[in-house]
């Protein structure tokens, strides 16, 4: 059985596993390299500047803050290697530090917020990719016809409109005027319910946990709160992926082997779906992976406008308050995700296109 896995030869499978293992082994080195760079950049700020993590506004100065005392207390004037070493030794013990922005350990803050971002990602990413691919293929097949023009115009609008503009317009129309889809992750009653002891958190994703707890009200409430962030987040990426898919398909459809397949009497549907689309997807996959991760990591604007308590909102809080524990913690987390995603993308190439070798 192991000889063939999903139609892939044994040799290729072994190569793939070796490749994956190598990438995973260098993962920690890459992550620490990234954090060293970020830590170094933060250390370009002097101790009094980094004190802004603890003294957040001019109003707090009014309280007579003892700046020297705070600098000494938090070791902000210790040498670089001491501060970095202190941080690394904590990380190795699983302690990413304490976030002053949200007043809890960074790891706990990320754990609390990750499910929200993941839930948004699941409902935003896969439909986005699927719809973009479908419409991109459809547009390319109907090249220069009415539907192609319509789709291209819509994608141009989606691609051109800044995210904060589309988000605010959606919020104004669908919440401000119509009252259909409120901001926030859940309504107050639902939030209290999911935080109560009676509600079991199986997955951390409210839509699934609502079903698993037999409380469809929570599921519906979560979906209601997800709709606007999903649309807002997907719009830009959908448009971008659609354009890539369409261009790629058009190029593939001009290839000789497609002409050959058609001349041999292969059904057009088979030509498109089996022969053309698969090859056209390679560049799409290349960009889709990072785009999905950008949704997870970079939904700062979306989460802020819709008051959706995910990782993006946390990143924003840490950045604006110079919370370096939070910044470093989220940097590590995002680095890990990017590397993992790139790994999945690379492996996906081999599955989709057997010509690609993982040497």
């Amino acid at each position, binding site marked *: 059985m192991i000889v063939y896995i999903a139609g892939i030869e044994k040799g290729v499978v072994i190569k793939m596993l070796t490749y994956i293992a190598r990438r995973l082994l260098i993962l920690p080195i890459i992550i620490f390299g990234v954090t060293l760079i970020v830590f170094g950049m933060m250390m370009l*700020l*002097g*101790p*009094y*500047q*980094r*004190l*802004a993590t*603890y*003294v*957040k*506004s*001019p*109003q*707090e*100065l*009014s*309280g*007579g*803050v*003892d*700046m020297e*005392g*705070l600098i*000494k*207390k938090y070791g902000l004037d210790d040498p670089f290697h001491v501060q970095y070493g202190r941080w690394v030794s904590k990380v190795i013990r699983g302690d990413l530090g*304490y976030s*002053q*922005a*949200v*007043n*809890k*350990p960074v790891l706990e803050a990320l754990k*609390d917020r990750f499910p929200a971002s993941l839930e948004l990602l699941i409902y935003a990413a896969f439909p986005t990719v699927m719809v973009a691919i479908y419409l991109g293929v459809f547009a390319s097949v109907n090249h220069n016809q009415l539907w192609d023009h319509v789709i291209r115009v819509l994608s141009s609008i989606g691609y051109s409109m800044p995210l904060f503009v589309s988000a*605010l317009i959606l*919020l*104004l129309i669908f*919440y*401000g005027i119509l*009252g259909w889809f*409120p*901001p*926030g992750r859940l309504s*107050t009653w639902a*939030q*209290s319910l999911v*935080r109560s002891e009676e509600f079991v958190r199986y997955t951390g994703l409210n839509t699934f946990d609502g079903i698993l707890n037999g409380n469809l009200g929570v599921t519906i409430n979560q979906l209601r709160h997800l709709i606007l962030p999903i649309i807002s987040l997907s719009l830009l990426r959908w448009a971008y992926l659609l354009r890539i898919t369409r261009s790629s398909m058009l190029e593939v459809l001009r290839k000789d082997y497609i002409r050959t397949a058609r001349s041999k009497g292969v059904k057009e549907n088979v030509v498109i779906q089996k022969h053309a689309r698969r090859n056209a997807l390679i560049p799409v996959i290349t960009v889709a992976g990072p785009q999905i991760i950008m949704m997870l990591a970079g939904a700062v604007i979306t989460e*802020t*406008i*819709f*008051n959706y*308590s995910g990782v993006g*909102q946390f990143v*924003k*809080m840490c950045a604006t308050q*110079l919370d370096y524990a939070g910044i470093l913690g989220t940097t590590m987390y995002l680095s890990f995700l990017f590397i993992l995603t790139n790994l999945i993308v690379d492996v996906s190439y081999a599955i989709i296109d057997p010509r690609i070798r993982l040497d």
Partner: protein
Amino acid sequence: MSKRLASIVLALVVIVASFSVVAGAQEYTVKNPNKLVVLRFGNAETLDPHWAYDSASGLHAENVYESLFQYPEGDVSKLAPLLATKVPTKENGLVKNNGKTYVFPIREGVTFHNGNKLTPEDVKYSFMRAIFQNRVGGPTWMLIDPIFGLTQGRLENVAAQAWDDTDKAPSTDELEKILKNNKEKATELYNYVSDHIEIDGNKVIVHLEAPYPPFTKILTRSNNYAGAILDKEWSAKIGAWDGTPEDIGNHFNPDASESAYNKLENMNGTGPYEIVEFANGEQTIWKAYDNYWRENAALETVVFKAIDEWSTRKLMFLRGDADLCTVDPQYRQQVESSKEIRSYSGLRAVGMRSFSFNWDINLKGNDYVGSGKLDGNGIPSNFFEDIHVRKAFSYAFNYEVFINEVMKGDAMRLRGPIPAPLQGWKLDESKMYNLNLEKAKEHFKKAFDGELWEKGFKMTILYNTGNLTRKSACDMLKTYVEQINPKFDVKVRSLQWSTFLSASRQAKLPLSISGWAADFPDAHNFAQPLLHSGGYYADQRGEAFKEWAKENLNPKLAKGMKILDPEKRKEHYRNLQEFAMDKAIDIWTYQGVGTHLERKWVKGYYYNPLSNGYWYKYDKMTDQEYTDLMNKQSN
């Protein structure tokens, strides 16, 4: 045909008329009738009241914990009993020994949220816990100063007193080590503090080292929680200070994360609400405490949502999904026009903003002083030490236009370091500076014996990035100063907050806007940090100011704390106000005036300038009451 037509027309008329009737007597519904939803922004640093020194943390503590006194319906000139049954005065005999002894009779029948009864031991424990915790940058100096006769004192100074070693107080780190490792010294310190706070039956008696007239104000429920009362038994159970000398070192100067009271499940006060849910930066939910010692709060639930994005807050407020909302002044018009929103304006904040002169600028690596010399290409270190320079700048600011046009009327003239309505604030207007370029010119010509006028100067005024109000103030000063003499060159620059903080601390800012907000409503709370040689602003103004203040201000400040008669204190601080204005120590610019916005179905609001948000008196109209109000308004 005509009959049919007439019937149709008649029917239409009836339909339209019925719409009119319906429109005229519209039904209105109050959303969330038993719940108050509050929208603001900001994260709480802590849930521990003795650690808290920011408004977001204060908001969380204020409804859960109580102090001995309160301000009656927001009148900060008076005190009313809360957990104490009487406000101590000389007249009622509860202030004795020339203002050095205060007697607090403690109320009976009060329970904490865990059901434990409030006792005088809890009060003593709470004061001692606050004193021993004394985290760096925290609020408990407000207890230490009056009790131990210090000025912005720390536990290190108290320890030096306890160990008879006042020449050299230990450092914070040294004290922590001593308290953890030296049982004898820890016990000595414990006994010293304990001796100042006595229990006699149901009374707690506090002995001060020196008279401190505003002492009771520090123990008042407001925006400072140094006086918050905790349950001693509960504290020991949850791992807070257990009340023994040996344990002091384990709880001295903790991080926010190290404080046991920073956990939701450990909160336990006597206040009208308990926090049942706390997701910092997202949402907090309070529930009314069923066994509150006064009448229970009218509203069962209060929900606070932290929403940074103004558009989102605005839409929720306009839709009625929120009852109270923080609105920045520049956005107020967007919501005030709604017929369903009520605004209370002209609410004086007990705080002040001024341009602070640096009398002793640190020239090292300083980009804001040009050449650093009085050569026409910069300013020297002692530029603002010359009173004529300070007076000239004070005459070169258009206070009225700034308040009316920039602040849109949300401010009032500051008459010195002491804002309204505190003792002595009301300096005669004739003694204040107004825009007068001729007088400014006169003083510039006198400055540095005429050398400044001949040579001119170059300098930069700074503000923290994003603060447009401060930017406008700086631009205004620049405009008028440069008009006086073409050789005067003033630049305005913004700095990121972190950089501003750093530059400020290193005394590199020649002139910057800063401010002070009240910890407790007494003139001393402003006079001391702003004018004393050891006050908070002294470092920013440099050694030259400190030397001058030692001789010219410190004696006045010390005298103010010895005057117990309220009228005499008022007169004394008014004289101090005049002195500070005359010497142009700062450009005393403005005092903020705020606006409170709420949905019209909300009842019970009253203004307390020192409150971060107190839900106890809030209530909501019924649907009928609200309908009647709105229909009356329409008619």
